[in-house]
């Protein structure tokens, strides 16, 4: 874990990519859940 934190500190581009990518993964997951609900409710 310490290694991972130190690599993020040493490489800001990597940190930005990981944080940004994770946020987007979350957004996509939320959108998927939204569409799933839409499908279920309108059966």
């Amino acid at each position, binding site marked *: 874990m310490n290694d991972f934190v130190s690599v993020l500190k040493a490489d800001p581009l990597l940190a930005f990519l*990981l944080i940004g990518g994770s946020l987007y993964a979350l957004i*996509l997951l939320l959108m998927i859940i939204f*569409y799933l609900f839409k499908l279920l409710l*309108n059966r």
Partner: protein
Amino acid sequence: MIRISSIQLFSLILAFEVGSTTLFALGIGAGQDAWIVVLFAFLVGLILLIVYTQFPKYYPYQNFAGILEGAMGKKIAKPLLFLFALYFYSQATHNFYEFGVLIKMTALPRTPLIVILYMFIFVIIYILCLGFEVLARTAEIFVPYLILFLVATYIIMFFSGNFDLGHLLPILGDGIKPVLGEVHTVIGFPFGEMVVFLMFWHYVREQQAVRKIAVLSVSVSTLLLITSLIVIISVLGPELAAYTEIPLLETLISVNIANVITNLDSISVFIIFIGGFFKTALHFSGFCLAFSWLFNHKNKNQRWVITIFAILLPLFSVYRFDGLDDQRWKGLEGGVLSILLFSFLPVLLLLLIMLKRKTSSKGV
């Protein structure tokens, strides 16, 4: 309009996949079972590949920016495209720096690294400015040589006298755990890196053949990778293969057949250069496309994007990495995670597209 043939796509994927990976002992953390790690990773990689090749089936001849905008709307799609662009640039710096250093180590030890990097990037600028077709045609020309040299090295090493298949035994001697512990690294590198081809599918002339060609090419690459690993471990043994900086080079240097066939490191340098060139060029080209789409640039302006960011690439690479050890540390500790993250984002994207299609077909 840029169109590439199926053979050109096959060559590009093969050069990209085999590219750098023959130089590293992939999955060597699992010792002599490294080849099993690659086999497992290939199976997961195939699933990823099927996901990636579903996009051209849904949206033939449509570029990735268009697909993203269609699926998520402009406001959400553009930041994601920006992230993809940054990820490709980050990967390009990794490949570019690594190969620059490897060429310095093997062929040009007295030349300053920055000079090597600039010589390298000028070729990339020239080829990319001529268009993606030219890069594809270059791959079509060079890949047969790459395969020929690789197969020749396998055969030469087999007859070198140092070859001992006993190094591969015992198979799964420590159980399956060390193998499973290494799989994620190999899924990311090289199979997850295939995500960059999402940027290029729309260039392929026969859109229906994309999946077939991609699967075939990745399968052939995996075969080459596994053979390469088996040869490296059989010659060096699992311990030495794990600690050597460039295992393929070490194995080639060790070859001495009757004092006639020696000093084969030039073959290794050829493999390094071709592999490094295509990996860097494809990642960089992916970045340029994503960046141009971000600002709705036409092809004319893309040349400026290529030139400006390519000239900055060596400077940024040297600024980002302090040496090969630093680059490999950053690559292994965090780089693989970023590859995994960005290679699995299209899976979510495809799920979203499928759900959207279903809701719209039901008239919801």
